[in-house]
């Protein structure tokens, strides 16, 4: 690492390091079903709380409002939805899924009450609009994460 050291710090040493830990995350029983359906059937599943009626995606075991068990309350969601919010990412960083600039959008899938973030492509940044109809484009290679949807793009 290069530092502007000057005389006072001429012997100061900064050691390069890395925090790296191969790791296995259990996806949970609910998450496993979601990820497998996404990967093998290209279906996007949510769960519905019978108490408050809210349809959650990504799915989860328990409604945070009602503590209702949602583990077997599956509903099939559409592969289409609308943009509810977006930002244009102008800065590159290693954890980001695309080279900048790209569009990170919040998308409410048809049949869901919550939105999911995803990359929006095939539209110029200046033409993105809240309320725009978009569809999921699935990845050709499995990732076992939400990136089994490669991106969303406008419905033409």
């Amino acid at each position, binding site marked *: 690492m290069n*530092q502007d050291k000057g005389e006072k710090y001429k012997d100061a040493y900064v050691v390069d390091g890395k925090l790296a830990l191969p790791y296995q*995350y259990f996806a949970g029983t609910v998450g496993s079903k979601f990820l497998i359906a996404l990967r093998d059937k290209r279906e996007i599943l949510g769960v519905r709380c019978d108490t408050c009626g809210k349809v959650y*995606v*990504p799915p989860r075991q328990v409604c945070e409002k009602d503590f209702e068990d949602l583990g077997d309350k599956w509903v099939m969601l559409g592969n289409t939805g609308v943009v509810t919010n977006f930002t*244009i990412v102008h800065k590159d*960083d290693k*954890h980001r899924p695309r080279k900048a600039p790209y569009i*990170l959008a919040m998308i409410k899938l048809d049949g869901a009450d919550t939105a*999911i973030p995803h990359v929006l492509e095939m539209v110029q940044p200046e033409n993105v609009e809240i309320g725009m109809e978009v569809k999921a484009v699935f990845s050709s290679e499995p990732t076992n994460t939400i*990136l089994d949807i490669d991106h969303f793009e406008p419905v033409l």
Partner: protein
Amino acid sequence: MSAKRAAICAVAQLPFEKAIWHKRIQEMCFDVVEPVLEQTGVKFCKKPGDGGIRSIVTVSDDVFDARTISNNAIQDAVGAHNRGEDKVAMDGINAIAYAVSCILSGHDDLILLVGHCKESQAESRNMCTNLAFDPFYLRPLGLDFETLNALQARDYMAKSGVTDEHLAKVVVRSRRNAAKNPVANARDEVTMEEVMNSPMAYDPLRELHIYPQSDGAIAMLIAGEDRVKEFTGKPVWVSGFGNCMDSYFPGDKDLASNFPLKKAAKLAYRMAGVTDPAKEFDFAELNDAAAYQLPMWAEGVGLCADGAGGEWIDGGGMEKMNVNPSGGMLAGNPIMLGGLARAAELVIQLRGDAGERQVAGARRGVANGTTGAAGQLQSVLVLENDRAGR
């Protein structure tokens, strides 16, 4: 015997900088512990019952330090060896509440609080905050605190009539105030034009709308009422605290609702006996990691009507209510210390030690701290001095 009240008796801050690369975290901690010992004459406990510090509360984050149980590394520097220590891995403003809880419960009557964070050592702080998101649905999309804040900014600005020009006003004013704050990081003045021509980072947020990378450390001595006089003639009383958590998944919530801050403020004000926040505070410190958060948090703590952030800026609300005399988080505090630095400024102001940025006659102030992106956990602290008359 447990105390009825607790006061902050001393505060020390290491001047915040973009990269304090030449100090290890241990030295940064020691550099704020030593002035607290000097200011108060307090000693570390050698024998039970000798009146010295026996309990230490620290603030740090494993990922920013790139070592797990990050508090282990600093035990000697904060005097915790052979004594009690607890770590708060959240915005350090919550550590004040933890310390006060220790005192009010009777667990101890004296707490040394020490927080540190270096944003500079990781290749990017956004890579650190990306790890706050779950590994299946959010992390792969590159979400981090800055991009999620940008999504909140878009929702909030639409709701409250806040424009690019309003954000520029917030940044210009932050720098002007920070120029008078010797510990602030970003102290160079900027013009409206410079802010409005600053490159877009994440629409609608420009680079100058986002707080600069920052390193620093803060220490405080907090004592129960019966012991305060041993350490200071200018105690700052902790009169209210509340916090509230929003949903984890960003798509589950209305990012512009402000509900966790409103609820945290309600809890803090009930404890402090505050009924009209717009009138009862002489000043406020709001934890604005990005410029839109200043008016948004002003709405949340009740300094400004809900949805009226834009008009409030136009009407001179920031100046009239003495918001962020320190320059705010926008002037540069590391993420773990944002709210703790806000609380530190409250203490300095309420002690009358703020020099040329002193709010005349300050008696009572409010600060907030945020943990997570888009104010996911909001914490509100009310502090006052003896002139508040309670």
